[in-house]
């Protein structure tokens, strides 16, 4: 067998192992999200990472979230829930994650996200959920 084929096989095995590890990490993160948040969702929702000393969270992000209307917002203390914060690479507060009803992270906003932007992302999350539903029933 040529060197190229062997090298391809070695690289392929490493990539497959990494992909397997990532699938495991994702499912673990999904379980973590379920543990931290207020249970199963029927609508898209927002994970809102904040912290005690985050001033922008109080002055900007929370008023923006309040403007969204009846949307579920799960507040997460980024310091207390480090594993979950790590999963979404939260190094900036506030961080908002727009989740689909199925628990898939669709958008991650590092820093202040205005209401208009979140509204648009939530609409996309609703569309994504509808598409999945249609595929499942087809």
């Amino acid at each position, binding site marked *: 067998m040529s060197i*190229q084929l*062997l*090298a*391809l096989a*070695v*690289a392929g095995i*490493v990539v497959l192992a990494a992909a397997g590890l990532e699938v495991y990490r994702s499912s673990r993160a999904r379980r973590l999200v379920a543990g931290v948040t207020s249970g199963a969702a029927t609508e898209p929702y927002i994970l809102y990472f904040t912290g005690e000393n985050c001033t922008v969270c109080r002055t900007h992000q929370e008023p923006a979230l309040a403007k969204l209307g009846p949307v579920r917002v799960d507040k997460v203390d980024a310091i207390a829930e480090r594993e979950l914060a790590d999963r979404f*690479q939260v190094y900036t507060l506030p961080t908002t994650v727009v989740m689909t009803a199925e628990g898939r992270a669709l958008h991650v906003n590092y820093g202040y996200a205005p209401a208009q932007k979140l509204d648009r992302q939530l609409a996309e999350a609703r569309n994504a959920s509808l598409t999945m539903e249609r595929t499942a029933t087809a």
Partner: protein
Amino acid sequence: MALTTVDHSALKVNQAGIIVTVLVAFVGSYFYRPLLVLIPLLAVVLLLGTFAPRLALFKQIYFKVLKPRGIVKPRPVQDRPEPHNFAQGLGGVFLAISSVFLLPLPVIGLALALLVAVLAFVNLAFGYCLGCQIYFQLGKRGLIRA
């Protein structure tokens, strides 16, 4: 963490350059072995570009040729350049290690080069930068000043 403007198109061109060079070396070496020299050359290009951005070959091709002629449109994003530079340097280091293995153990050398190309592809296609993540993790553990 100072945010500045990073042209993500320059990063994409850099990633595309890495993928194409590794693929040419990989496929080409099947027919003409000396083409493997592209891998150490790419390592040198990436490492030089990390420490002296003016010498980053693919980024310079973007800034001097592709962007002025409108072949690739700029995509400025509020971002930090350090994680991307770190990722590029890491790619260079892995390619340098790969180059060391190319003569005694070509399978390992080529496999390492392919992995660098796969990671560049993942970054180009899906925007996931493993090197940047390693940079943040090292910063969080206080091993580098992130």
